[in-house]
């Protein structure tokens, strides 16, 4: 009798172990698949911009609830929620500058709507938002750089003369005219996308990119001499370096 009990017990134990192993394997496989999907979702379409106040992409993907309240409260229908085939995490809000740019509402309704903090409530001045950064990517086709009077991006910029300035350069083609080159100031540009929308070319010569794509970064060890000097109040090197004089033999100064 007890032998039979043992047999039943051992069968039950065996069954429990195989069932658990099976479930664990299936879960592991599913987990692998989902991890693949998750890693893919971190890839970010270069022309899909996050709403104002969005946390850095990594944190954004951990916090956005994909509820669409920012989309609903955007008065300009700028924001959209990504569908599964979009090249940005499914369900998250984004906008395409060339289609509908951000109008930089002063009360920032999208941030106020966000229940999770994925759009950071610490953003209270819309001019502090950094949705992306404008870059004059096509210097060949830009009309202004060809010496033509366009400058539409400059005129439409909500922060004209701050985010975009015009730099006068010599028109090499005619040799007598001036070209007005739009120059973007990354410290001021909000990435609203008005310039990209307004660019008169068939395909915009000025485009907004997520800031991590558009900006280079100085090596962390790198120090700019003039900034360090300004901070210290004095230069770290003698103003005039007196290099040793090396003269041909027999010559004296």
């Amino acid at each position, binding site marked *: 009798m007890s032998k039979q009990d043992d047999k039943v017990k051992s069968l039950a134990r065996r069954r429990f172990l195989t*069932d658990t192993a099976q*479930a*664990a394997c*299936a*879960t592991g496989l*599913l*987990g692998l698949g*989902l*991890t693949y*999907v*998750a*890693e893919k*979702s*971190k890839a970010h379409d270069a022309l899909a911009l996050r709403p104002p106040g969005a946390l850095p992409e*990594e*944190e954004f*993907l*951990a*916090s*956005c*609830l*994909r*509820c*669409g*309240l920012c*989309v*609903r409260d955007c008065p300009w229908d700028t924001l*959209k*929620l990504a*569908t*599964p*085939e*979009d090249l940005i*995490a*499914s*369900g998250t809000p984004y906008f395409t500058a060339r289609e509908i740019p951000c109008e930089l509402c002063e009360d920032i309704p999208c941030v106020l*709507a*966000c*229940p*999770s*903090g994925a759009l950071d*409530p610490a953003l209270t001045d819309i001019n502090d938002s950094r949705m992306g950064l404008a870059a004059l990517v096509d210097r060949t086709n830009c009309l202004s750089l060809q010496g033509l009077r366009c400058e539409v991006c400059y005129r439409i910029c909500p922060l004209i003369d701050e985010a975009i300035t015009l730099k006068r350069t010599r028109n090499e083609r005619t040799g007598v005219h001036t070209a007005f080159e739009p120059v973007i100031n990354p410290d001021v540009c909000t990435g609203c996308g008005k310039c990209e929308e307004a660019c008169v070319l068939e395909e915009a010569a000025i485009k907004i990119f997520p800031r991590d794509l558009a900006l280079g970064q100085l090596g962390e060890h790198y120090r700019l001499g003039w900034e360090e000097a300004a901070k210290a109040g004095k230069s770290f090197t003698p103003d005039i370096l007196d290099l040793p004089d090396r003269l041909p033999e027999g010559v004296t100064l």
Partner: protein
Amino acid sequence: MSTLKSNAPKNKRTERNPGKEATETLGWWAAHRFLILRRLSQLTVLTLFLITPLISVKLIEGNLSSSRILGTVPMTDPLLALQTLTALHALELTAVVGALIVAGLYWLVGGRAFCSWVCPVNPITDLAAYLRRKLEIRNSHRLPRNARYWVLGLVLVLPLVTGVLVWELVNPVAMVYRGLLFGMGSGWMLIVAIFLFDLLVSQKGWCGHICPLGAFYGLIGKVSPLTVSAVQREKCDDCMDCYAICPEPQILPAALKPAKGDGPLLNTQDCTRCGRCIDVCSQQVFSFQINKPDSTDSQCRTQAGQQTITDQVSETP
């Protein structure tokens, strides 16, 4: 067993058309009321979401992941809130309050009541189950009923590993609503996939075995005051209609048969409170019941305990 065999032709008929007898004896409305009420509830919630952008009153905005009622009261999917927690993001108070409200609400109305009264996937898998009965599709890959808890665990662990709310990339429950309210894109493919999975691969496969949201609401509903109970179980005539219709039929024997030593309450964790068993039972065995949350468990236990005692007594001589 012998009774089952002798009733075989009748069972075959009722399996294809459960609730027929109830319709004949109790009338059409009585045999379909909870089905109709559930469809109305599902439609009402969706309609409120759909019409709000079109009218000036902000009834309910957002979607099932997170929403806002009348421009003020927040609602947040509590499982989603937990995922942000394991993704190590500190939620704003609005979403935290929203999650507590939703968790409290579904605790009150019975956990998986979400599944049968609100979830947009329910009509899809119900349709698959209906077609399975009508077309007599019998083959089914049996998944373990506890698979959903493995998936639930996975859904909560993956944000910690990847830093991404992974489940939300593929969650069909959220995707249906998001699709209907904000643009479907290719999201319909997932919906079709779930329908076909339930129809051809595994009976009640998605809602009854895999969905981690259902599993989560099941855990909330475990201690819920609103339950379905086989109060008049002694009247049961073994017609099997409830087995054919119940999305979680494995919970029925314990409640229906006193011999199993359990109380008449249907398993509060798995039961979706859909009320279809109440509809299709011509003997009116089942009914909704409101219990004091603390007495629910103890009541079960005492009844079970008494049962075992009487069993022992009858066995001793």
